């Protein structure tokens, strides 16, 4: 019924890529520089590992470490550093930490015990969900302790459209469960098979249904969290979350999008609207972004309005990468090289995927049909197909979801996630492309080595602009510096945002000084101190280094 039935295997994509790291800065010794706000943080020792294991009731597998000699009496916790790679390396493989201690609690009490210990001993902590974040927020900068939520994955309740679950539940498992209760989890994204709801909340993930169902700030009704001192806070979570609750400062909102810098989210209450009983999808191609915007406006304001659920755009450059890297596993719904029938020799350059949600199939089909007729009459489309069953809807989404992995399989991806007025998408992309044609001489690349591929949630004004160095899987520092400067300029001059939905992590926090005023940043820092007085929570990320302020 709903496309959340799809099985997404992001993990399998992760392992097929050659490894590529080696930012020298990651090898710094810890206590000196990594932790910007509290210089007195230390690195965990074998004794810390032992103490944490005790707090996990010595449960086998609750602590993974290379610090302890396994004396064979307690548990099989001592493992090779290689098997900690899963926790030290992120999805993009751009970021690598050196943690030698991973703790996997299975209750809120255990999370509290860990954070209390780390607070008392001034040990830095990185909360980790599915490790699919795209800004290096979920892996250590150096030797921080990783607290993985993967063992906390119980779904507690779904009643009156309110889902209550542990933060470590995989998004897709929640979707499947909600689907059986005829409810829809109002967030969906390509990493659903791996990412966790706690990670989604912590990054305030957007995804494809943002426009229709609203942000996680709107849909998250309650949280249970543990702050940076080990205190458990019940933020409208129990005894029962409500749709409306105006009692006191709504602190849960601070944890939504905080990227693990205030504490650890342990439980989540989510508003899940009724599952749409009528789902439709169309895939159309256009010869210009102007036409894409024309179709968007008509869909949004005139023809599909209340049944419009998702509106995604992809350029055909990325779809060529999809075709090249996933030829056997996905089938493109349309011929992306086809020439326009309507406008002489115009080629189709963009694809749009539109999904509708409603409760009355006849009604929705009538609307969709009038819409399609209109955009065809207006010559806005080159070609298109309409899903005739749920399987075809899923096939369309599979292509959209594979854009990210396809770029990653092609080369190193210089990845940008920006908010812009939609009218600026075209000139923004043109500006970036022209900058790539005048690369500084000292980079190892020429414009021919790079491909600029674009897709995104255009209905939210959210563009994913990706520059791929084809066949080269290492990051070029000079190119990074150049491209980032170009992007920052191009975004700020259009009053855009340099992070629409992926967050800041260790990747974009440095720009905060340029985009936020001093007073605002200072207030953010004071606010963080309130929840995390020792600065142990995900240090060196999210907020910029204080000294650079």
């Amino acid at each position, binding site marked *: *019924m709903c496309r959340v039935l799809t099985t997404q295997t992001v993990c399998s994509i992760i392992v097929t890529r050659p490894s590529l790291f080696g930012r020298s800065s990651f090898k710094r010794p810890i206590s000196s520089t990594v932790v910007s706000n509290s210089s007195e943080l230390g690195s965990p020792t074998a004794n810390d590992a032992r103490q944490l294991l005790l707090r996990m009731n010595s449960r*086998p597998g609750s602590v993974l470490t290379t610090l302890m000699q396994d004396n064979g009496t307690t548990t099989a916790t001592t493992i090779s550093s290689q098997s900690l790679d899963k926790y030290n390396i992120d999805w993009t493989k751009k970021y690598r930490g050196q943690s030698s201690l991973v703790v996997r609690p299975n209750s809120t009490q255990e999370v509290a015990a860990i954070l209390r210990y780390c607070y008392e001993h001034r040990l830095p902590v990185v909360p980790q969900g599915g490790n699919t974040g795209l800004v290096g927020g979920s892996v250590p900068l150096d030797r921080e302790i990783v607290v993985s939520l993967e063992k906390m994955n119980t779904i507690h309740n779904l009643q009156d459209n309110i889902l209550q679950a542990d933060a470590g539940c995989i998004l897709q498992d929640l979707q499947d469960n909600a689907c*059986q209760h005829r409810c829809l989890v109002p967030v969906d994204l390509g990493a659903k098979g791996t990412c966790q709801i706690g990670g989604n909340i912590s990054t305030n993930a957007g995804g494809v249904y943002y426009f229709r169902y609203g942000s996680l700030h709107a849909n998250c009704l309650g949280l249970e969290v543990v702050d940076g001192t080990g205190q458990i806070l019940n933020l409208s979570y129990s005894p029962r979350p409500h749709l409306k609750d105006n009692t006191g400062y709504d602190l849960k909102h601070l944890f939504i999008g905080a990227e693990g810098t205030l504490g650890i989210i342990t439980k989540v209450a989510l508003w899940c609207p009724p599952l749409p009983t009528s789902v439709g999808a169309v895939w159309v191609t256009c010869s210009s972004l102007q036409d894409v915007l024309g179709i968007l406006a008509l869909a949004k304001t005139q023809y599909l309005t209340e049944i419009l659920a998702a509106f995604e755009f992809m350029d055909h450059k990325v779809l060529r990468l999809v075709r090249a890297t996933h030829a056997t596993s996905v089938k493109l719904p349309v011929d992306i090289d086809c020439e326009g029938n309507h406008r002489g020799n115009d080629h189709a350059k963009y694809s749009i995927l539109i999904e509708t949600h409603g409760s009355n199939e006849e009604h929705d089909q009538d609307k969709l049909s009038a819409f*399609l007729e209109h955009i065809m009459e207006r010559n806005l489309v080159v070609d298109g197909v*309409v899903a*005739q*069953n*749920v*399987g075809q809807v899923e096939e369309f989404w599979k292509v959209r979801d594979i854009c990210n992995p396809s770029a990653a399989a092609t080369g190193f991806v210089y990845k940008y996630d920006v908010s812009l007025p939609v009218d600026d998408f075209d000139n923004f992309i043109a500006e970036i492309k022209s900058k790539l044609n005048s690369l500084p001489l000292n980079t190892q690349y020429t414009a021919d080595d790079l491909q600029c591929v674009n897709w995104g949630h255009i209905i939210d004004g959210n563009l994913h602009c990706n520059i791929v160095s084809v066949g080269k899987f290492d990051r070029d520092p000079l190119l990074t510096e150049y491209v980032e400067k170009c992007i920052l300029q191009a975004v700020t001059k259009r009053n855009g945002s340099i992070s629409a939905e992926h967050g800041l992590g260790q990747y974009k926090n440095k720009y905060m000084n340029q985009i936020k005023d001093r007073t605002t940043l200072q207030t953010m820092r004071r606010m963080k101190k309130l929840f995390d007085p020792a600065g142990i929570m995900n240090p060196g990320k999210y907020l910029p280094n204080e000294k650079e302020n």
Partner: protein
Amino acid sequence: MKVLVGVKRVVDYAVKVQVQKGAVNLNNVKMSLNPFCEIAVEEAVRLKEKKAADEVVALSIGPKQCTETLRTALAMGCDRAIHVTTDMRTDYMELQPYAIAKMFQKIVEQENPDLILLGKQGIDSDCGQTGPMLSGFLGVPQVTFASNLEVDGNGITVERETDNGTETIKIPSLPAVITCDLRLNEPRYATLPNIMKAKKKKVDSIKAEDLGVDMTPHNEVVEVFEPPPRKEGVMVGSVDELLDKLRNEAAVIA
């Protein structure tokens, strides 16, 4: 050559069906073209594109919403459609394969097609009986479970899937009934221009009662129930534990 192709409207295969009051609940449930009929439509349209067929007629029996299902077939390339209207359920609960095959026979007698292409079964009742019964009523050859189909002079050579492998059968002359299996082809998407064209194609509608066929079910459905939920799997902690379980619990390895 004229081809008649069967188009059944069934609960979409991605939908998890629910049983209510002794029958599968069809209320507010996504319905689509039966996947095996979709393959039959695709094959018929390919015969037309290869110039082996000159007309493809789609036939559906069921409620008024069957016209939507027929529109899918028309958008895929069928030339026109016939809708036999009835409000009886077509998922074995009311109308059963015997009556459906009888109605098909009536339409075949009117239309005189050379080839009748059907799905090997409807995914609602999984009977697989309509094709064989129809060929019996018509007294014409049949091949079930077709996985390849080649027009060959006046006849057709068909490969069919069996439990032991592939069987090749040559039908020397038409008419014939062929039912289609999964590997016969990969159905196309309905393109926008073809969906628009399909709107203008003719759909004749005939009341089921007017065909003069006995529609009463011959078999009684005793019980309809959902399959028991699958037992939850267990996570094993190590390879050793897995081996132990396979050896001592499941006893599948020595």
